[in-house]
Structures are given as structure tokens and as C-alpha cells.
């Protein structure tokens, strides 16, 4: 079976100014994004992530290289019919209600007339936007905009969903909700490409990650493989006294092992925040 996205030797140069100076945004990038996984595309601002996604979607033309989506050449209508996209900081027509926007996107994405109503309600339900769907988009909060953006991206039940900074500017509760939507899509066997600066979330939801810097791929692999330090171990011990600690260190030293640090485990601030404000919505 072909990859969800296959990128081979992709290069993109932008011409700048009257003299046409070249700015290389993507430099000989090759990637294979497998199907059915959540794939994180990471990197600092200006590293070429968004440009790569735009080329994949046919919004920008490549200077060199080949891209295919689900086995079909990218930038074709057929490939885009099987793809959903949530752009960074999405903006939608404010006079439309959430339901009208999702319906509009369903029609543009080729959902059959008979299936539109059900598809719209399914997408709104998945994005937890059913209650607010009758309100104009102009009244939505940032988190709701992201969620309605997610709904319009998945309304046609695409096999591949590309999310560009879906949690940018969203509070941790909203961010966690989007994380849940991503997990729900993965459970349905969809491929998700996630571009995000929230590394904690990427670590939690992604199966594989690629890190780009200055247009080049600097690391790619399964999250477990790239994060694990196989030469170190962590023990979590309860009710440890100084005597017990000294005995443990001596026992380990007897086997040639060295204790390099002893600390108290911490929960993340995000976990604490979510625990304290659980149940609150940004509606």
C-alpha cells in the first residue's frame, strides 16, 4: 500500500525583490508518511513546514521534486478530495453560522446531496460544536474557531487530515479537546499530519515525528525511538528514607551502575491546569 504522503527531493525557492534573489524555503526534502498514523511535522518558525504543507496541497508550486498523496499526484482534485486541511489561524466568513460553513465545505468537497446533513452533523459532533452550530462564526472564541475549522476539514470523511498549528492560541482545555479529536480520527484509521509548536501535545498524540530546520529534514522516526535514552533508566520509589537511598546506591554501585540524579517526580503545569479547570469550556 502506498504512503499517505510521499515527498521526494522537494525543493522550493522563492524569488525576492526586483533582482529575483532566491530564498530556499525547502531544501531537498524527502519524507514518507505512513497511513493510519499521527505524524508530527516540527520545526522553528520559517523552517519550511507550512511551505511544505502548501506544496502538498497544491497551493504553492514546487521548484523541484515529486509529491504524491495516497498514491496520486498531489495538487490534483482527486487527491484533494481525500484530504482535509485546517490552516494555521483559520479565518472564515463571519456572517455564516458554524453549520452553514460546514455545509458549504461539504458541498465543495463533493459530499453527495443525500449525505450532506448527516455528514455535517457528524463533523459538528466530532468537533463538539453541535450546540454552537447555529451561531454566526463572528461570535466564536479562538478555540471554537479552531474546532469549527476541524469540523470543516473532516466533514467529507477524508483519509488524510492535515492540521497546521491547530492549537495555536488555544487554552490548554481547548488544546486537549483538539488532541482528543485527533485521537478519534486515528481510531477511525485516518492519517493525520500535525504541524505544531506544542511539543508536549505532539509527544502525546504522534506516532512518528519529523523535525525540520532551515528547509532541511534533521530527524525523522517513531516518537518512542527518537525520545528514548536506552542507556538511562528511571525508578520511581515511594517512602524512600535516606538509609534506603544509601543502600540502593550501594547495591547499584556493586553492579557497576551509577546513580546520576535523584529528584521528585513533577506533573506538568499543563496537567495541573487541566486538572483544575476540567469541565470548563471556552464557549
Amino acid at each position, binding site marked *: 500500500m502506498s504512503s499517505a504522503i510521499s515527498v521526494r527531493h522537494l525543493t522550493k525557492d522563492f524569488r525576492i525583490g526586483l533582482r529575483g534573489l532566491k530564498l530556499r524555503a525547502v531544501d531537498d526534502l524527502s519524507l514518507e508518511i505512513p497511513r493510519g498514523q499521527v505524524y508530527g511535522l516540527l520545526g522553528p518558525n520559517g523552517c519550511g513546514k507550512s511551505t511544505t504543507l502548501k506544496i502538498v496541497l497544491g497551493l504553492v508550486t514546487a521548484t523541484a521534486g515529486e509529491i504524491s498523496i495516497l498514491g496520486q499526484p498531489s495538487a490534483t482534485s482527486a487527491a*484533494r478530495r481525500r484530504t482535509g486541511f485546517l490552516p494555521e489561524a483559520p479565518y472564515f466568513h463571519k*456572517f455564516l453560522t458554524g453549520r452553514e460553513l460546514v455545509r458549504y465545505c461539504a458541498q*465543495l468537497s*463533493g459530499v453527495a446531496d443525500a449525505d450532506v446533513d448527516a455528514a455535517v452533523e457528524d463533523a459538528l459532533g466530532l468537533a463538539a460544536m453541535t450546540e454552537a452550530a447555529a451561531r454566526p462564526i463572528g461570535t466564536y472564541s479562538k478555540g471554537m474557531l479552531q474546532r469549527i475549522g476541524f469540523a470543516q476539514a473532516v466533514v467529507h470523511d477524508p483519509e488524510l487530515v492535515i492540521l497546521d498549528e491547530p492549537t495555536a492560541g488555544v487554552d490548554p482545555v481547548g488544546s486537549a479537546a483538539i488532541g482528543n479529536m485527533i485521537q478519534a480520527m486515528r481510531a477511525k484509521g485516518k492519517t493525520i499530519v500535525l504541524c505544531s509548536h506544542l511539543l508536549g501535545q505532539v509527544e502525546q498524540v504522534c506516532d512518528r515525528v519529523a523535525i525540520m530546520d532551515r528547509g532541511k529534514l534533521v530527524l525523522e522516526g517513531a516518537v518512542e525511538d527518537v525520545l528514548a535514552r536506552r542507556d538511562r533508566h528511571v525508578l520511581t520509589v515511594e517512602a524512600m528514607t535516606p538509609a534506603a537511598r544509601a543502600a540502593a546506591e550501594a547495591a547499584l554501585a556493586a553492579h557497576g551502575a551509577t546513580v546520576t540524579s535523584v529528584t521528585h517526580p513533577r506533573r506538568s503545569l499543563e496537567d495541573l491546569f487541566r486538572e483544575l479547570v476540567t469541565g470548563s469550556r471556552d464557549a
Partner: protein
Amino acid sequence: MQASLRRTLWISRVTFLEAVRQRFFAFLLVLSAAMVLSSVSFRVFDFGHGELKFIADFGFGGMFFFGSVLAVVMTAQLFFSEIDNRTALTLLAKPVSRAEFLLGKFFGAWAVLGVFVAVLASLQGTVLWAREQELVAQAEQAGRIPTTFSFGGLVQLALLQWLRLGVVISIVLAISALARTFLFAVVVGSLAVVAGQLQWIAQDALLRPTDSPVYAAFLWVSTRIIPNLQQFNLADALVLGASAVEDGAVFAVFLSGLAYLAAYLTVGALIFRRREI
């Protein structure tokens, strides 16, 4: 084909809804309507022409002037709001072709101009009819032949004005597809409308003999690229019957307008296809 048409119509629908909500549209519509209604008050300044002709010229002049302003500014605004607000990213990432996007914008803007023309033509017809009743009564008392106007001609003229504004929209969309800024599109679009209004001068010059083949070639190309927007000015002939219309003349103008409209939309779609969003 059917799916493509459906996508185009949906984009047109949303474009129309966006446009009719604009205060700019409401402002120009009210201003133009006021101009048509006020034409009766200004008929003393008829410059020696008949009253109905003055009212018709005043009203249709306002319709074209404000319609052109609306066609240039609103079309450029509708196009650039999609690009600048990045709603185009969301749309074009779906199975929507660039041509469908541009056509959707065109039909949405043209529908708004259709409402504009229909409202003003209705008002114009009402004003002309009301004044015609008074003039007929006066003429009968004085034993003169009354001046009248043609409702059918008014409808034909309104359709021609709508087509003329459609040509302007297609030109502005072609310019917008190439332009990087809203301001550039508005300025060049406005210049194109002025050039279209003055195109007959180049046509006249082309008929005169010249020794310069470069000048002749320039005129020939200019008269082909720039549509003659004056050819749609058939108010005297169609509405007032003041001059005869040659057989097929209205049809020829209609076909010419459609040809320019299709040509500019094709050029716009070809340019837009290569544009990076």
C-alpha cells in the same frame, strides 16, 4: 461537469451573501436610487432635450457610473479579502479548481450587480412612467403628439447595462489575479473602465489612413484588447425610440459583451492558476 457547476454556484452564493452585506453596496445603491428619483427635480436643466430623455440619461448615467465604481471596488475587495484573510487557503485546499474559484467570485459579484441594476431600472421605469402620464395629458390638451418611452426597451437596456458591468467585473478579476494588492487592482481596474469608455476614439483613429504601421498596429491591438463600453449606450434608441436601431445591432452588442466577458475570465483563470496562495 455537474459537480464543478455545483461548486461554482456555492462559491457564488457565499460571495453574493458577503457582498450584499457590505455597507459600500448599500451606500451606492441608496445614492444611485436617490439620483434616479431626483432626476425629476432636475429636469429644468434638460439642456434643450426632451424631459424623458433627460430623466433617462440622468438615471442610466448614474447607474453606469456608480455601477462601475461598485463593480471595480467590490470585485477587487471580494477577491482580495479571500486572499488576505486566507479563506482562499481553506477553499483551494478542497477539490476546487482555480477556475471554479474565479468563476464563483464572478457570478457572485455579477448577481449583486444584477440586484443593483434591477432596483435602479425599476425605479427608472417608475419615474419615466409617472412623468410620461403627465406629459401625455399635457400634450393631449395642447393637441400635440406626446413623448413616450418603451418598457421593453428599458428592460433590454437594463440587461445591456448588466452585461456591461459583467465585462467590467471580468476585467477587474483578471487584473486581481495578477495584482499583489487591492489598491493596484482598483487603480488599474478604474483605468480600464475609463479606457473602455474612450475606446471609440481609437476605433475612429484606426479608420483614418496613417503612414505608421506601428501606430496602426497599436490601434488595432488596443481596439481588440479594450472593449468598447460606449457601445452599450443605446438608451436613446431602445428606451425613447429617438433613433433607429439596426437589425441585429442589440444582438451584436450582446455577443460582443459576452465574448469579452468570456475572454477576460479565461485570461484571469490562466493567470490565477499559476498564482501562489
